[in-house]
């Protein structure tokens, strides 16, 4: 009895000691934080913003950010640390970073990667209405209002969309060397079925080339707009009744999957496509014939410049303005940001100041690029150490032009944006909180079936009914019903 009491007291002593150590750690941390906080308010010590963005990490990021920081420190008293996360990992890593409260100020979010609406609702982002009014007036004038309007969630802005192409248009991209070599006609191509003769030619003549390049994220195009990107609930683009359907049960998707499976069996698709995370190896080697991508005006120039060989494209769909396209690239301020005002000031500057925007995009003049004239630049050899995706870094219309770009590039963008058709459910954002558990279960099912079905790896005859069944078991019908209720209410209030 006595012995056990003593033991208990030792245990307590140990715990107290350890808690002391622990609180000491925490304490010092808090101190340093508050120290940083107070100094930023009172003196000139710059605030450092941590900025997470998507893309293959580049060697010269720190070097360029040092330059950027010099500029921004002078302008608005901030320095910038950029952290890049590779394409395939972005959603997952950010999910974990946000959930676990990794310190950050600005982060990239979009409908496709690290879903904007869902995470806005989860509280990952700061609500920006007031900050926008206070520090973002210039920005508001610079960006097409359709973007700011389309990225509202429940009536509030949670991020600054990049000013770029507004509609989303799918294209077939072709490796022009091969098109020319076999004298192929790409002008009559549009549907998934129509590419078959081309694929066949390549397959027969070029054993080392992957005819139809894709990774595990590929989804055949069907004329529907998804309620949530990559989950099987969608509304037909020419809908009149606004009915949400399971995309896997639509005749269009079923036909597309059958075709995909046919292509897969014919060897047009890489055998391991369903487990391949990226096609970048194919793109660098040039051992591919075609793939599908989203376009923007003059995109062929961009692609050709970045791959080092000519790429051409033809449309595979209409240009539609959807939530996905409007929310295709957004920069949000993290809910745990220590310096939301400074972050907003930075975003404002980034979207309005050509010097800053181009530095972030192309790196350091003389090192990574050189100017040809006032608006055109040329990449230098070092640019491969700082090759950034332009779409994810803010206002595109401030950017310098590539050597081949016509002077009216951004006017072409404006025209393209003006001509896009609205999706019927544009600006309807589904709130999935009521069906959160079902959403998680449906996600799990999706992980299991999606890639192998979409790439044609498995036979839809056998697997499609299985997948549909599994989705139902996971509660997809309940989610669709909930979404339908919200959509109907939205329709009524927006008189559609």
């Amino acid at each position, binding site marked *: 009895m006595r012995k056990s009491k003593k033991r208990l007291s*030792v245990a307590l002593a140990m715990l107290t000691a350890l808690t002391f150590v622990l609180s000491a750690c925490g304490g010092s941390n808090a101190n340093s934080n508050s120290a940083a906080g107070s100094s930023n308010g009172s003196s000139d010590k710059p605030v450092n913003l941590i900025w997470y963005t998507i893309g293959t990490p580049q060697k010269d990021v720190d070097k360029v950010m040092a330059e950027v920081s010099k500029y921004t420190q002078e302008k608005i008293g901030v320095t910038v640390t950029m952290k890049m996360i590779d394409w395939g990992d972005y959603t997952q890593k950010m999910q974990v970073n946000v959930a676990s409260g990794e310190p950050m100020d600005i982060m990239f979010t979009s409908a496709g990667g690290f879903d904007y609406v869902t995470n806005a609702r989860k509280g990952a982002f700061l609500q920006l209405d007031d900050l926008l009014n206070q520090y973002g007036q210039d920005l508001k004038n610079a960006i097409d209002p359709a973007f700011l309007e389309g990225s509202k969630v429940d009536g509030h802005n949670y991020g600054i969309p990049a000013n770029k192409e507004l509609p989303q248009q799918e294209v077939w991209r072709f490796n022009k060397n091969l098109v020319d070599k076999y004298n192929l006609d790409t002008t009559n191509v549009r549907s998934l079925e129509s590419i078959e003769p081309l694929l066949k030619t390549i397959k027969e003549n070029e054993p080392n080339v992957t005819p139809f390049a894709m990774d595990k994220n590929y989804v055949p195009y069907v004329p529907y707009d998804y309620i949530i990107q990559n989950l099987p609930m969608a509304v037909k683009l020419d809908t009149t009744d606004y009915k949400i359907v399971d995309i896997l049960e639509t005749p269009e998707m079923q036909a597309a999957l059958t075709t995909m499976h046919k292509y897969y069996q014919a060897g047009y698709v890489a055998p391991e496509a369903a487990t391949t995370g990226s096609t970048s190896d194919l793109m660098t080697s040039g051992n591919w014939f075609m793939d599908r991508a989203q376009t923007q005006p003059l995109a062929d120039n961009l692609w050709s410049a970045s791959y080092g060989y000519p790429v051409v494209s033809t449309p595979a769909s209409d240009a539609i303005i959807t939530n996905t396209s409007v929310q295709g690239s957004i920069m949000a301020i993290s809910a745990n940001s220590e310096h939301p005002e400074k972050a907003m000031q930075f975003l404002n500057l980034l979207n309005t100041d050509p010097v800053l925007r181009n530095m972030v995009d192309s790196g350091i003049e003389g090192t990574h690029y050189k100017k040809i004239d006032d608006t055109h630049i040329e990449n230098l050899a070092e640019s491969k150490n700082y090759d950034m995706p332009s779409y994810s870094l803010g206002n595109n219309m401030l950017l310098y032009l590539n050597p081949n770009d016509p002077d009216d590039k951004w006017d072409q963008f404006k025209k393209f944006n003006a001509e896009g058709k609205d999706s019927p459910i544009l600006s309807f954002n589904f709130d999935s909180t009521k069906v959160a558990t079902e959403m998680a279960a449906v996600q*799990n099912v999706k992980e299991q079936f999606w890639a192998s079905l979409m790439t044609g790896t498995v036979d839809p005859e056998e697997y499609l009914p299985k997948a549909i069944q599994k989705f139902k078991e996971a509660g997809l019908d309940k989610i669709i019903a909930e979404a339908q209720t919200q959509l109907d209410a939205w329709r009524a209030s927006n008189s559609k």
Partner: protein
Amino acid sequence: MASFFKNILKNKVMLLMVLPGAIWFFFFSYLPLVGTIVAFKQYRFNREGFWASIVKSEWVGWQNFKFLFSGTDAWVITRNTLLYNIAFIFIGLVLSVAMAILLSQLVGKTMAKIYQTGMFLPYFLSWVIVGYFAFSFLSMDRGMLNQILGWFGMEKVQWYSDPKYWPYILIFVSLWKSIGYNSVVYLASILGIDKSLYEAAMIDGASKWQQIRSITIPMLSPIIIIMTLLAVGRIFYADFGLFYQVPRDSGTLYSVTNVIDTYVYRGLKTTGEIGMSTAAGLYQSVVGFVLVIVSNYIVRRLDKESALF
């Protein structure tokens, strides 16, 4: 109280010795243990930090567990974890003991040593590398297996998208990696058996087979039992690398490759619902705990010296 401090002082050297280790346990074992309470919460990040997030997240009771057990997920991952481990333990045991006895019977010492060295190799390789190895055999268009099938005029198999082969593949790979190691453990014990027992048996005219059955195996049985029970205690924990790297995280194969450990990891990655993933982890921990206690209890009954505690 005074005596308490006196004791601390008297044991100060020993206490200093355990201190670094105890601190490690505190941070890497006990704090995470406290962290499992998020299994009962809908975890939402709070800007005041780690503790605030845990404390201020909303209690949801058993809802995360309900999610886990509502679908077929819990059943599939539990089944996979258990069945694979049972197969690994028992097939592995039989083959390793057989291989150990076989090695002990070999004539010719140089060769025996070479065999052993070869068998031991897989144990030293990481699962990432084993994953590459597997791919060189299983790749759909280039892999060796499909080429061999081709020679026999058979159709190519899509190894990475056809679940029906994977129970065999996984069992094979797991055994491939572990038999060499385990058989050396058993071989070491065989060599420790008193030689006079065999000499006596030979004088009595016992055959080789009789010697194995009535001397080698009975003498091995304590270590066999302990090794097996130790493995049984871990039966609820799967080898993450085997189930994640070797099937290349292929979704189509999840029905036969998803185990509790991979499920927890994917939960963190794809849904980001920390509470739900932690619930699956806690479920594993609790059942695993019970299994360790039970198997330890059995070891204790059989051979007190060998029990873990």
